[in-house]
């Protein structure tokens, strides 16, 4: 018995010692599958700052986490466009001190001064994500170009969707020819019928790593983020990436500092580190979204313009969100 106690105490001391070498911490909440682990651990080594890294799978989950935790629990977060606007309204964000960043000039100005935060008072853009349809051409020979095409009965149990109500309801609305931010009750009802038909073809909803479903051939079609599609294509070259003709979601994710943050200085150090060219390169290599860094990326300015032109941003729809909530619960 004594030996066991000594052993346990030993483990205690061992684990206790390994944690105390950092001079500071920064509490980060970010999208899952967004920044490679080694980028974070290199920061910890370089700056001697411990990063407490948590993840979320939707903007709504982020909002819930921030507003239910005590002020000062989190420092750095990565909300998308409409969530910046909403968090600004709810006074959950700290004004951004751009002068603390040395590498701000690396950002392509076309991504700055967006309508949700027109002077970048509260946010600086990090990455641009878009939704895409990925199709495994090994087994699907049809030409898929729109959301309507996904309703084909042939694809039963063969689709993976992002698990995010705004995006999927938005896709249904676009498939029906409505605006992605439509709040008209009749249009939402049509979207419900659309999604119920689509659900027969859906094998799973997954936001965190939908590419796995395509790579393991669990499904042949995915309505998933662009980087996920590209990563799936890297594993299987016969995967085709499609920007649906009825439109798709643009999601600009930003750096933002949470109100009451206790480790602001460290958060700015981390942001400045993430803005570095070499770091952006590493992030994009592992998660191929569209970087806001002007020195990085495989897409030309014109190609980015085309993507921006045909996509649409999700907007804050205020209290109508409860209609979306309910619709989503009905679908599931």
């Amino acid at each position, binding site marked *: 018995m004594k030996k066991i106690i000594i052993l346990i105490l030993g483990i205690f001391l061992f684990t206790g010692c390994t944690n105390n070498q950092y001079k500071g911490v920064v509490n980060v909440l970010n999208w899952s599958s967004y920044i490679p682990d080694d980028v974070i651990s290199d920061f910890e080594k370089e700056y001697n700052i411990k990063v407490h890294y948590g993840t979320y799978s*939707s903007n*709504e*989950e982020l*909002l*819930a*986490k921030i*507003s*239910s935790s005590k002020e000062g629990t989190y420092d750095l977060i990565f909300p998308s466009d409409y969530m910046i606007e*909403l968090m600004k309204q*709810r006074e959950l964000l700290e004004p951004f001190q751009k002068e603390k960043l040395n590498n701000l000039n690396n950002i392509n100005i076309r991504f700055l001064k967006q309508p949700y935060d027109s002077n970048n008072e509260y946010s600086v853009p990090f990455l641009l994500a878009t939704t895409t349809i990925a199709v495994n051409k090994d087994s699907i020979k049809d030409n898929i170009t729109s959301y309507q095409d996904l309703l084909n009965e042939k694809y039963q*149990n063969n689709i993976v969707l992002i*698990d995010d109500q705004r995006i999927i309801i938005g896709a249904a609305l676009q498939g029906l020819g409505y605006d992605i931010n439509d709040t008209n009750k009749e249009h939402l009802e049509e979207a419900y019928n659309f999604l119920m038909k689509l*659900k027969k073809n*859906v*094998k*799973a*909803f*997954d936001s965190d790593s939908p590419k796995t479903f395509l790579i*393991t*051939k*669990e499904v042949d079609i995915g309505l998933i983020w662009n980087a996920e599609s590209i990563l799936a294509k890297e594993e299987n070259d016969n995967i085709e990436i499609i920007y649906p003709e009825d439109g798709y979601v643009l999601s600009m994710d930003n750096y933002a500092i949470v109100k009451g943050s206790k480790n602001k200085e460290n958060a700015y150090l981390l942001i400045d580190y993430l803005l570095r060219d070499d770091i952006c390169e590493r992030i994009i290599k592992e998660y191929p979204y569209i970087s806001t860094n002007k020195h990085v990326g495989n897409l030309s300015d014109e190609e980015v313009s085309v993507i921006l032109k045909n996509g649409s941003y999700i907007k804050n729809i*205020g*209290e*109508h*969100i*409860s209609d979306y*909530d*309910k619709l989503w*619960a*009905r679908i*599931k």
Partner: protein
Amino acid sequence: MKKNKLFQYFLLFPVIIYSFLLILIPLIYVLFLSFCKNDSYGGMIYEFTLSNYLTIFDFTYMMILLKSALIALIATLICAFISYPFSIFLMDKSERTRSFLIKLVMIPFLTNSLIRTYGWIVLLRKNGVINSALIGTGIISKPLSLMYNNLGIIIGMVYTLLPFMILPIYSAVSKMDYSLVEAAKDLGASKWKVFKEVILPSTISGLFNGSLMVFIPAIGYFFISDILGGGKVMIIGNLIKNQFLTARNWPFGSAISIFLILITFLLVKLYKKIGGKMDDLGGF
């Protein structure tokens, strides 16, 4: 005498503080929240309303409640159908073997439940171990859909909760008076009749104990429906989780929780009525 009192306080003070601070107050607060209003993006308004409870009876949410009750019920029944023959068949063995075999039931449950659930993904997916084996031996030609549907969830629930059914039923069966079974057999009763007339009545509290310990967690285990249901099937656990962690409608989430507590209390009352002891619940 004074010293006596001091000792009494020493023994009772912690449990009183504990049960008020960590059980009673949290539950009362949830009860309070369930009567509050909610603004659309998760602010709470401290005004009295019954609407959260009325929303539960909305068709959408009622369907989720019924569906998850059905899934939990099927899982409970399957567990019972496995546990009874298992426990009865074990009685053939010597006492030593029996105690070893019962310990063996617990071994899988000493590894992490999520990693075990993950093990089921490896087994059940389209090109997973089971499908590959069945196709390889020529039993089927096309892979079966074993997960990302209700079936996957039920397999996961049965697997995770089976010992909670096996243990109480085994303990009831092993305490049973076997001469009764023999007598019934001698009188020519069929196997089913022996089970129905003799075994079931004398093990009913074990069965009810196990059913409680399977059914109630099965309503709430959101991680199983998340992982093995592919995010497609919402059970009450997911619904509550979403209200608290995504939709940020705490009052509605609280109302569903209170509703669940009421159902639990009702089941526990029933359990006590048939002669079950509270201390047997959740014991090993």
